[in-house]
């Protein structure tokens, strides 16, 4: 009998070309690039190298695109440096014969939203991208991880990457989530539990009945933030939810190829008895809507809690970090989270920019008005069109939200969609680091429904008080 293997180990083993001293030469099935990937192309050109397998790399512009007034294409980007980034991607992909879904393409979107949407992301594949949130794609049972510019250059030049095998961590979440509690709350609770370095050097597999019952959108949200726990990759075993999601998508296998793929995909889930280097479990029923109060994603609490004193935290490191975070965030210990006023609301990103996320926000916003400025930037142009077909855009605009175009927008704020200094933003993004949404900006991470609720009341709000029966 063969040794039981994990999902991670199976994909790893199937992609190892050769090994040496603790490292493997790993074959990369699909590589994704965006408008922040220019250093890799510059280095490649400087070394006089070409892209070895152009048909295995796919590109879209997301980081530097404006989220309003895009009708004039590239000319709509007024900042010359930002336009230069988008232009450079177009140039680099044309020179290297790479499929590029640019500013005008109806399939454009945030790379981690369109990968699954186009069916590029599939179970069993190795997927890389020059972005830390590449972990998102693991939701479909792929091994997907972010790389820096030099490693991206290596992949472009060779379609391979020297990699040290990660350790494995299984996070098991069992039970039924309560109304108003969703995938974002699950992942924030996991990060709060294990810490931002809790999964460093590990690949996480999310398992358990809660994950099995979860939609693909929810799984994508959870895998997306694996990097916020330090993990390079996060993954979920493929199942019927995965297969139903993939059927009929542009790059999904068709006809008899689908049958062959399905047969292979069904062999991928971790075997019973597969060993993991560590394991963590979580009770879904005990989770509440969760919000960050500090400047690292682990500084998160249930919305019913109060701002902690730095001395409440475990150990001098966390205490020192919390003291600085409270200063930066302008918060007083003992304040109930639900008494914290917000200045802005932002819904979108590779974490929470999918149609299900927008539906969850719309369910709260229907017939209500927001009292602070709010932006919604759908995760992709197809998500935007779908939301419009469902009439969600009208719910948002009638509530007072700005209905914008798709891009990374105010998550990384690289396109100029910044939150002004000192302002407090309820955000569906993934990082609450100092200055992340703009210099001096204060970010509270939460789910789309929670952002919608905060926008309606003007303060952090327990969305359960606004749920309709």
């Amino acid at each position, binding site marked *: 009998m063969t040794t039981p293997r994990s999902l991670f180990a199976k994909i790893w083993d199937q992609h190892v070309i*050769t090994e040496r001293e603790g490292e493997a*030469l790993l074959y990369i099935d699909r590589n994704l690039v965006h408008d922040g990937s220019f250093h890799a192309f510059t280095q490649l050109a400087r070394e006089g190298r070409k892209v070895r397998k152009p048909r295995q790399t796919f590109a879209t512009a997301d980081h530097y695109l404006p989220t309003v007034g895009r009708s004039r294409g590239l000319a709509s980007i007024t900042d010359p440096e930002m336009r230069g980034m988008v232009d450079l991607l177009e140039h680099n992909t044309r020179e290297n014969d790479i499929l590029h879904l640019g500013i005008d393409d109806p399939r454009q979107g945030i790379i981690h939203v369109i990968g699954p949407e186009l069916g590029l992301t599939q179970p069993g594949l190795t997927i890389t991208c020059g972005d830390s949130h590449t972990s998102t794609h693991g939701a479909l049972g792929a091994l997907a991880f972010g790389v820096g510019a*030099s490693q991206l250059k290596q992949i472009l030049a060779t379609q*391979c990457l020297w990699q040290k095998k990660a350790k494995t961590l299984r996070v098991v979440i069992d039970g039924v989530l309560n109304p108003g509690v969703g995938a974002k709350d699950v992942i924030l609770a996991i990060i709060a539990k294990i810490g931002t*370095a809790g999964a460093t050097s590990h690949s996480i597999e999310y398992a358990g009945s809660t994950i099995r019952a979860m939609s693909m959108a929810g799984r994508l949200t959870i895998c997306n933030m694996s990097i916020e726990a330090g993990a390079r990759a996060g993954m979920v075993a493929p199942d019927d939810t995965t297969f139903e999601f993939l059927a009929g998508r542009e790059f*999904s*296998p068709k006809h008899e190829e689908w049958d*062959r793929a399905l047969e292979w995909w069904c062999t991928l889930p971790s075997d019973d008895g597969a060993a993991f280097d560590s394991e963590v479990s979580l009770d879904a029923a005990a989770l509440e809507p969760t919000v960050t109060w500090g400047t690292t994603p682990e500084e998160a609490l249930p919305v019913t809690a109060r701002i902690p004193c730095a001395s409440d935290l475990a150990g001098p490191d966390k205490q020192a970090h919390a003291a600085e975070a409270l200063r930066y965030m302008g918060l007083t210990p003992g304040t109930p989270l639900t008494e914290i006023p917000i200045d802005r609301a932002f819904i979108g990103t590779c974490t929470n920019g999918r149609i299900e996320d927008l539906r969850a926000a719309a369910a709260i916003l229907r017939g209500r008005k927001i009292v602070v400025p709010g932006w919604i930037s759908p995760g992709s142009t197809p998500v935007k069109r779908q939301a419009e077909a469902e009439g969600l855009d009208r719910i948002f605009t009638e509530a007072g939200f700005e209905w914008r175009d798709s891009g990374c927008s105010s998550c990384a704020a690289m396109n100029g969609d910044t939150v002004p200094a000192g302002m407090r933003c309820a955000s569906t993004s993934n990082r609450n680091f100092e200055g992340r949404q703009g210099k001096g900006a204060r970010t509270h991470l939460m789910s789309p429904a929670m952002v919608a609720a905060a926008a309606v009341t003007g303060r952090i709000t327990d969305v359960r008080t606004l749920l309709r029966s």
Partner: protein
Amino acid sequence: MTPFTRLTAVAAPLDIANLDTDKLIPARFLRKLRSADAGYDPWLFYDMRFDGEGRERPEFILNQPQYRNAQILVADLNFGCGSSREGAVYALMDYGFRAVIAASFGDIHYANEIQNGMLPVTLPQQTCKALRDQLRARPGAELSIDLESQIVTDTLSKTHRFDIDAVYKERLLRGLDEVAMVLQHLPEIEAFEKRHHEAHRWLT
């Protein structure tokens, strides 16, 4: 890539755990092109180094005269967590840093340092703290790092052995070009590719 063998240089202590790459280089500078005469050094630690008017904050460690030529940074836990931006390493290197000593690193940032010939040294958290205390007691003091023997020598001449994977060590010592290292295996890659794509035809 410039090989890294040994280095004796001024070291700057930075008492911040979870120092994320947004702090190392704020995202708004990532659209800068980088060339031989336009490095990323101006953007390193930008919002910690400079105030709203672009003036140096005198309290920030690298703005103090004794540390201006620092080539070694001594940090704490989880250095370089967050985004995959290699600009964080470019900023450190263009400023003059050749090595970072920390209790742990973000995985992607660690790989990015190696890729650029910069040495990430992992030492226990207590040791990192002791080194920072020494450096604060004697501003401008030097540390020595010998990669071959995997030893850091502190300001009191005490030695601290560190671990590093053999492959990373070799790559840094010899300044190896990783793409060339991959392409040595081209026949195996092509054979793998043929098998792999025959089994998964829809991927081609």
